[in-house]
């Protein structure tokens, strides 16, 4: 894994994670710090995207400040119905993440909606379509961090 990324890539990612330069030529500003030119910066980022080390470059918005309600939800899917239940849940654009995990409950997903009513509606639809009546809902009270450090 390590060989997919060298020291310079690592430094570029650190700069990107800690503060994208808000200037006319941001990649030049990054390159100036690392003694490489802006084309090298851009082509390294393109390569990291192609390698799958990074999956997205762009803005991250604060969903709450844009009027969205976020919650984490969990359902316990029987072993032989995992794909079927995942398909019901993943169909919603409002479901942004879904992971199968060890333990009970075993399927954990996040939901971003414009209102509590919409959140309830989606949860109720999932309950009806899967026939599983227990879905745990954890609304966020305070967030301390959302970021992968490297």
């Amino acid at each position, binding site marked *: 894994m390590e060989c997919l990324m060298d020291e310079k890539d690592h430094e570029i990612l650190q700069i*990107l994670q800690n503060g994208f330069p808000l200037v006319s030529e941001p990649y030049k500003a990054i390159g100036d710090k690392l003694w490489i030119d802006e084309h090298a910066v851009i082509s390294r980022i393109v390569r990291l995207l192609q*390698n799958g080390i*990074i999956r997205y470059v762009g803005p991250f918005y604060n969903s709450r400040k844009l009027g969205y309600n976020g919650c984490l939800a969990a359902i316990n899917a029987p072993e032989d119905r995992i794909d079927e239940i995942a398909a019901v849940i*993943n169909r919603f654009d409002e479901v*942004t993440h*879904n992971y*199968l*995990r060890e333990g009970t409950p075993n399927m954990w997903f996040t939901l971003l909606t414009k209102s509590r009513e919409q959140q309830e509606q989606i949860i109720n639809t999932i309950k009806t379509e899967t026939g599983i009546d227990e879905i745990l809902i954890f609304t966020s009270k305070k967030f*301390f*961090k959302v970021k992968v450090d490297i």
Partner: protein
Amino acid sequence: MEYLDETTKKILKALQNDFKLERKPFKRIANELGLSEEDVISTISRCTDEGIIRRIGVAIKPQKAGFTSNALTAWKVPQEIIHEVGSELAEMKEVSHCYDRECPKGWDYNLFVMIHSQSKEELDEIIKNISSRFDLKEYKVFNTVRELKKTSMKYF
């Protein structure tokens, strides 16, 4: 969203849907919207200060960055120390997500922490260290089996 003016909304929308790896990303967005580059940059900068934009940056795949084992952990943390614990955990590079959450009846584990590490053994070690460092005895560990969905929200 209602409190944002139309120009700000247009800029945020263009930034989300049309951010490209190019020499002058803000200039092109400005041209397309009929604004000046300075206006675009200053709006983005203001939205960052106001916390509407968390950051412009990259989404890293933890597995590819060398983190192969990860788990969602949930901790029973009293409200009196939640700020201290949450802030300190947020400083750890192994922690990607850390949220204090409202819990349903019968569930006592309010602090949700996503932890990444290079091996299962190291992961167990990190969890044990957190437990002893903050004297948190009650917690649950949900090791990741596989990703079923991961997308970015389209807000606009």
